[in-house]
């Protein structure tokens, strides 16, 4: 298929919404990185910066939603063009949620200012956030490159994120059972870990959009669920 539309401004519109999406992705990656850094370094100024920065992500999402609605109304896109617009809308929602999760992490980081740290757990949560931040970055790369194989690989990767979360969950549980003074910090860090783990789910969602964009079909939902912590409060962190 020829890549260019006869109406060149149609191409510019489609490129425009995808460029805005990538800009939003960049802000979300930065927010995730900074929230993780703020937590580990106990840098409350940086946490505050992340909290405030979420507004920018929300504004960008609103711009993308407005522009995609306009494009649908004015261009009546079909086939791959329609899927491009639909996936941009969907991915912008995923990214907006990731922005919220980074903000939640930052808020909880500020809330833990008075609680004493549990040794080892901060490093583990840092590992988890590094892992999901790369998942987000790669899922956006796969989208822009229309790389279905990479998208599938990212979906597989989510099981590993779940495993890191499970390990951290068990470790926090042990610390809290051993010493009740750990409970305040342990609870906060558990919510934070759950938020980070959710980012991995959004990266999976973005990867699924890439597969839909290219193949016009959604992948079967048969990826292994590795969250073994389902003890009735699985989604408490949302």
């Amino acid at each position, binding site marked *: *298929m*020829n890549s*260019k539309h*006869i109406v060149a401004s149609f191409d510019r519109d489609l490129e425009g919404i995808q460029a805005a999406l990538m800009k939003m992705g960049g802000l979300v990656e930065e927010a995730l990185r900074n929230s993780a850094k703020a937590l580990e370094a106990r840098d409350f100024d940086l946490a505050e910066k992340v909290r405030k920065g979420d507004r920018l992500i929300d504004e960008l999402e609103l711009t993308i939603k407005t522009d995609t609605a306009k494009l649908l109304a004015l261009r009546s896109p079909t*086939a*791959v063009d*329609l899927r491009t617009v639909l996936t941009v809308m969907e991915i912008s929602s995923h990214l907006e949620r990731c922005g919220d999760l980074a903000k939640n992490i930052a808020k909880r980081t500020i809330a833990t200012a008075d609680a004493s740290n549990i040794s080892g757990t901060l490093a583990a949560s840092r590992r988890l956030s590094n892992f999901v931040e790369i998942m987000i970055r790669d899922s956006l790369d796969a989208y822009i490159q229309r790389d279905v194989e990479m998208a599938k690989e990212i979906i597989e990767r989510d099981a590993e994120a779940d495993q890191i979360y499970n390990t951290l969950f068990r470790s926090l549980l042990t610390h809290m059972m051993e010493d009740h003074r750990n409970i305040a910090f342990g609870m906060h860090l558990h919510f934070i870990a759950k938020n980070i783990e959710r980012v991995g789910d959004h990266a999976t969602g973005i990867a699924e959009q890439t597969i839909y964009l290219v193949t016009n079909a959604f992948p079967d939902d048969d990826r292994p669920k590795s969250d073994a912590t389902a003890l009735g409060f699985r989604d408490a962190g949302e």
Partner: protein
Amino acid sequence: MNDMRKIERDVKMTDTKITARNVNVHYGDTHAIKDVNVDIADKTVTAFIGPSGCGKSTFLRCLNRMNDTIDVCRVQGDIRIDGKDIHDKSVDPVQLRAHVGMVFQKPNPFPKSIYDNIAYGPRIHGLAKSKAELDEIVEKALRRGAIWDEVKDRLTQSGTGLSGGQQQRLCIARAIATEPDILLMDEPCSALDPIATAQVEELIDELHRDYSVIIVTHSMQQAARVSQKTAFFHLGNLVEFGDTDQIFTDPKDPRTESYITGRIG
């Protein structure tokens, strides 16, 4: 993927009305239609789309042997309606065209009264035995053409005095008056404004419960709006034929995708 419109109307699309096999058309040295094979379902709107000169109108005109009237035009291949070969010696093209009605791009009412525009076909085909019966046929056709309420008080006035949209609906009513099974429409809305277009599209939607409607259109959005099946023609080939929702969301041929997304003309 299910087309919501099919479910809504509970349309049975299993009956084939028209089968075309290895249809080739030449205009002098020009090979206009190349080996087209297609099955067109009954009680369905089928849209033919494609760039100018792709052969969609030529193929449409094969279906009621309108190409017979063009000297340099040669049609080869097998076209059957309800299993009957339309090129069979026993088939009278005039009778055929009463069963396969046609509506053209430009509304072309006869310079006669509204009543006579509709009554013309039934009269020459001897469909009415009395004046009362003819009146009934005219009213029924005008009602089905969704124009009765607008013209019932001025049936003796000239059909050419109507607005463009009304004229086109009059022509559709005229085509219906001979009780056809199939309605061919060649760009029926391209000379109409958006409101008149919407009225004709609504009419097409009504008509396909009783007729097999085939519409040639340059407006892909119109094809998407009115049809259940879409055929994409390109350079005389039938490139792709499928459910309209599939053609517009998941075309299988890269040429179809390029065309419907506006990448090739």
